[in-house]
């Protein structure tokens, strides 16, 4: 049995021997870069994460089909991807990203879906000096940690619901009180804390500000606590809890003029709530009904890059069984575009040069405006991109219909106040 104690040693030695190698071969004119990421193919985040990966893969396919990224010196860059399943589990993320960098020799990294996972991966990226574009991750705090190589594709959490406050004041200038019920997780807390500050700055009161456990199913204690005379209810968290909250707000006949919630409302599945979803507003990173276009970008004097919205939607639906792309998919594709643009501008795949190009990036894509904060304290935070606010309204056939209502320039319909 003495052999037992050597088993791990032998195993480790064998592993050690096997690990090196697998470097990418390169010719002068054509190079292949590896983009590494983890995807939550299983676990609680799998639906959103798979959509995100679909978007990213579509970008890879487009680039390679178009003959790769062409640099000024004539080199052609082809894209290869390497990914692992992180099971929606943060523990795995750091181990897998270390593996992506050291064993799979990934040149650039894309973040996993969701803020906590992206946060964990960002530490590794920075530790090994690799550029990482985060998508599907809106928390602001990642960019306050002194990272220099992490760039955000999403509008940060702090600007997620502030538009709802503007919308409320426009619809009802006399509105005074906003009740906030939010999920006690990092992302939602970031959103509502910033929103509360914004609301108070605009002269509104926030008489109720309560967090709930993300696994909550019974919102009665919270709803019963909403003070009388509240004009709007805002908050929520992720899909499940927010949907439940919306349903129970309806069942309990809360007389708010406006209900603005996180994450869930833009999802097509939200319409399954029927009556309960009518008049609920929410914000989305991107919607197929958005109105970004090369012409509009030209008017602002900012460069357009990549496909237009109809081109993207068409290509995506053709590839993925006619499934309409969600903002997760758009974010995945946009992450690729951000990297592609930076590599083209830098004319190189050297980390420092590409990072410098990232810092200067300022463009419009089908996904919207992209520009990064470059102040040392907030480096990499998304500054350009804006949220789109949608509202569920009763359509002509009586079924719920999604309408973009804010900002005014992007809207496809008029926002309404709730009558409950």
């Amino acid at each position, binding site marked *: 049995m003495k052999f037992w*104690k050597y088993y791990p040693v032998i195993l480790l030695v064998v592993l050690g021997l096997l690990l090196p190698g697998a470097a990418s071969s390169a010719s002068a004119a054509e190079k292949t870069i590896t983009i590494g990421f983890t995807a939550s193919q299983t676990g609680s985040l799998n639906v959103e994460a798979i959509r995100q990966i679909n978007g990213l893969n579509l970008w890879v396919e487009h680039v390679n089909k178009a003959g790769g990224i062409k640099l000024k010196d004539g080199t052609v860059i082809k894209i290869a991807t390497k990914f692992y399943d992180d099971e929606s589990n943060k523990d795995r993320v750091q181990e897998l990203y*270390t593996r992506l960098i050291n064993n799979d020799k990934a040149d650039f990294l894309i973040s996993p879906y969701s803020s906590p996972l992206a946060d964990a991966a960002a*530490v590794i990226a*920075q*530790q090994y000096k690799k550029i990482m574009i985060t998508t599907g991750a809106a928390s602001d705090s990642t960019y*306050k940690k002194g990272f220099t190589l992490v760039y955000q594709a999403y509008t940060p959490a702090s600007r997620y619901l502030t538009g709802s406050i503007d919308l409320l004041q426009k619809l009802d200038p006399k509105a005074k009180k906003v009740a906030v019920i939010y999920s*006690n997780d990092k992302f939602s807390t970031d959103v509502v804390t910033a929103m509360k500050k914004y609301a108070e700055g605009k002269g509104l009161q926030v008489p109720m500000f309560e967090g709930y456990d993300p696994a909550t199913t019974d919102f009665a204690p919270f709803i019963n606590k909403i003070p009388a005379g509240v004009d709007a209810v805002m908050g929520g968290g992720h899909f499940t809890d927010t949907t439940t909250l919306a349903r129970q707000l309806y069942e309990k006949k809360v007389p708010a003029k406006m209900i603005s919630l996180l994450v869930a409302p833009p999802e097509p599945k939200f319409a399954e709530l029927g009556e309960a979803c009518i008049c609920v507003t929410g914000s989305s990173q991107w919607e197929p009904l958005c109105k970004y276009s090369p012409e509009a970008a030209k008017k602002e004097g900012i460069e357009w890059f990549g496909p237009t919205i109809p081109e993207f939607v068409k290509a995506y639906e053709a590839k993925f069984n006619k499934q309409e792309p969600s903002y997760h998919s758009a974010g995945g594709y946009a992450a690729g575009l951000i990297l592609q643009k930076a590599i083209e501008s830098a004319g190189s795949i050297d980390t420092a040069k590409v990072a410098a190009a990232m810092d200067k990036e300022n463009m419009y894509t089908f996904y919207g405006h992209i520009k990064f904060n470059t102040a040392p304290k907030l480096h990499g935070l998304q500054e350009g991109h804006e949220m789109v606010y949608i509202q569920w309204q009763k359509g002509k056939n009586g079924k719920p219909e999604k309408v973009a209502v804010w900002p005014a320039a992007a809207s496809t319909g008029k926002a309404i106040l709730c009558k409950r």
Partner: protein
Amino acid sequence: MHNWRQPGFWVSFLLVFLGGLVVLVLRQDTLRETAFTILMFVGLAASLNILMGYTGYVNFGHIVFFGLGGYFGFFLVSELGWPLYVAALGGGVLSAIIAYLIGCAVLRLRGAYFALATIGVNEAARAFVSNFEPFGGATGLYVNFSAYERYGGAGQALWLTFILLWLVALAVVVVSYLVKRSRFGLGLSAIREDEDTAMVMGVNAPMDKTKAFLISAFFPGLIGTLYFFKNGNVEPDDAFRFQMSLEVLVMVMLGGKGLLLGPILGAFAYERLRGYLIVSPIFKNLHLALSGGILLLIVLFVPGGGVGWFRDRFPRLRRWLE
């Protein structure tokens, strides 16, 4: 000290020692990450064993000490700027103090009642920390990236964390052994076999149980601080994962509770097993069910765990498999 000539101790000690040494010699980052996870679970399982294996008291909330101690240690590093070594100790000490206080209250309870009390503690701790502003509430805490500079850059800091964890794991093995061989440890075994009789024979059961609980809780606090420092941030959901408590428990049972080598091999085997299963497309989705199945089979048919089974089967190996 003829105690130190026990081959059983050296088998366990050298296993952990050489495992870490190989990683240090090879200096591979990926290997280090894998080894970090394994060593972490070795430390957690071996420290749980001090309470569960020696006294027979199941603790479903072992990870609470990992979370609370880790939170506190991380707080010392990120908010107060303490050096990692001192902060990790601070995390451990806080865990030990909390265990002592809980122990004084709850360990007067017998068996099943104690287990019940530990089941809710995880949720309560998570809810508490989520609402506790000095620990950042639901958002958690993070270290600024520049904190790693102090240890010679991020790369160096990661190696340092690994070495510290390795030392902690070794310390758990040594302490487990010392406790087991001491008069105190004999008292614990007596409690496990028959608490009433033990008390009649002069074992101060509540006090001894509390001490075992305290020692068992100290190490998760240390490990937690190191783990969160490596991660760069800490959030309530990562710190108090009930699932992790369970996995540690399965590891102890798998290797053999009450033995020195049991939790070490249990943690190693479980981690490797999970590593293989995750890659396999069929088992990937079933790994919780599978660990449940393993646990059930062990409880029903091999209550002594893997190492215990070998000891029963091959009595001559007993001095090697402590």
